[in-house]
């Protein structure tokens, strides 16, 4: 199903902003908030994983019901998960389409990755000392 991806600050994401390698941040930034009726249509239960794809890439997130969203829109808090599927095109303004980005969502049995795992997949290296 096609959706519009909206990304933004949440208070929990803000709280973990200086401990981004921890579980709390990983959990918060990999939540895909979605209207309950859209969940029904997707055939996905709350807490199950979904694969979110765009022209820029794809990422696995966990579905969380949110009645405050309009149907057809999903919300993901700022972080590396949502930015894995945001295009770098800025239309000559310097600003990517962080708030309005077309994505496709399908159910998946794949596991979510942590932010560090996503970076390691890209060739990054975590510092394990101190």
């Amino acid at each position, binding site marked *: 199903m096609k959706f519009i991806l909206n990304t*933004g*600050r949440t208070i929990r994401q803000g709280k973990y902003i200086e401990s*981004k390698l921890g579980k709390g941040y990983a959990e918060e930034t990999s939540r895909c908030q979605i209207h309950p009726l859209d969940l029904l249509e997707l055939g996905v239960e709350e807490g199950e994983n979904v694969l979110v794809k765009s022209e820029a890439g794809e990422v696995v997130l966990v579905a969380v019901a949110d009645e405050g969203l309009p149907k057809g829109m999903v919300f993901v808090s700022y972080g590396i998960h949502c930015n894995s599927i945001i295009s*770098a095109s*800025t239309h000559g303004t310097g600003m*990517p389409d962080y708030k309005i980005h077309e994505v496709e969502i399908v159910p998946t049995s794949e596991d979510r990755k942590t932010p560090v795992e996503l970076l390691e997949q890209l060739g990054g290296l*975590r*510092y394990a000392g101190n």
Partner: protein
Amino acid sequence: MQEIKDMVCPFCGCLCDDVTLEIDGDRIVSTDNCCTIGNAKFLGKHRLKNPIKKVNGKWVDITYDEAVDTAVDILLDADRPLLFGWSGTHGEAQCVGVHMNEILGGVIDSTTSVCHGPSILAIQEVGHPGCTLGQVKNRADLIIYWGCNPIEAHPRHMSRYTTYADGYFLDNAFRNRKVIVVDVRETETANVADEFIRIKPGGDYAVLSSLRAIIRGKGDMIPDSVAGVSRTQLMQVAEMCRTCSFGALFFGVGLTMAKGKYKNIRNAIELVDDLNRHTKFTLTPMRGHWNVYGANEVFSWMTGYPFAVDFCRGVAFYNPGETSAVDVLARKECDACMVIASDPGAHFPRACVEQMRDIPLIVIDPFQSLTTPLADLQIPAAVTGIDAEGTAYRMDGIPIKVKKAMDSDYPSDTEILTRIYDRMLEVKGL
């Protein structure tokens, strides 16, 4: 145990300056008056203990002297370096960054380009009818939050300056001050509004235009529904705006990051302009990082431009969309990057992250961030507001001295950058 009052919170653009910290030795043990986010910032743990450098695919601990030399080598070896971040550090460090960029002939950009950069483009077109937050607190009887969610992003904004604040010139401010929230989703902030306007995604420009038409007496032109908002509600909201004594429109990145980008803000400013023919109305962007406004101030004084400043021609040049960080990275144009006081590894699109991975990357940050795994060198700095001090600008442009609560062995951002800059001048014989 020592208690320090009136400290400034270095998290968001509210720069709350009434924070009390309780200190035990070299550790902050509790805070008072902070929001959840500010509290977490002051109590932050797990700082990087020393500079680290990636050597043959492994991180090794190094000294500050070695770190400065490595940073100088990387930057001087580059043809087109990008110096990005700046919004989470004090103005004095931003000054050194601009000087450094002039020597390097690189691009210097702050997180502005991915937050309120479009707002600045609009302000350059049609001006900024703004005021201080003190004026809003004491006078405004109508508040509009458009495309922003202060309860989650600026948690004390409503209690310090708007909804829950007393107003010197207002009777019973809590009851009489009206709040309108405009958003595409029903947020926590929408739940406490007197009037919530839900707009279809991408419909902000049309709704702003409709309100302007009504204010200009052309309400009969408005169709039954505009971007999901009924004509009745538009008429009602326009009347609330026209008849208030002092209105304050706060807008967030819901406008700058959506379709239309800076044109949305231009339309919002022009709505405020139209309303000022009937009453007093002002507009303020909800700035995110605690000193992103300061980065705009410092860059403007020193180069003439507020962000995305390119020195490759020997003089300052500015063209957002071309010289902004996301574009420079996505075009794979820069051949080295220094990131300070921000985390583009977490907040930039993947194409930009891949470019940061592929070029020499320096990070100056007290903590491991999601830019760290991509970096070749990280230099830990003191945290402004805890063990470093400096000047910051609140979201309404008021400069505030951010004090430090304690001393530590960590050098401040200004000290680290000055050492890099001085060494750079020495190597270049300048």
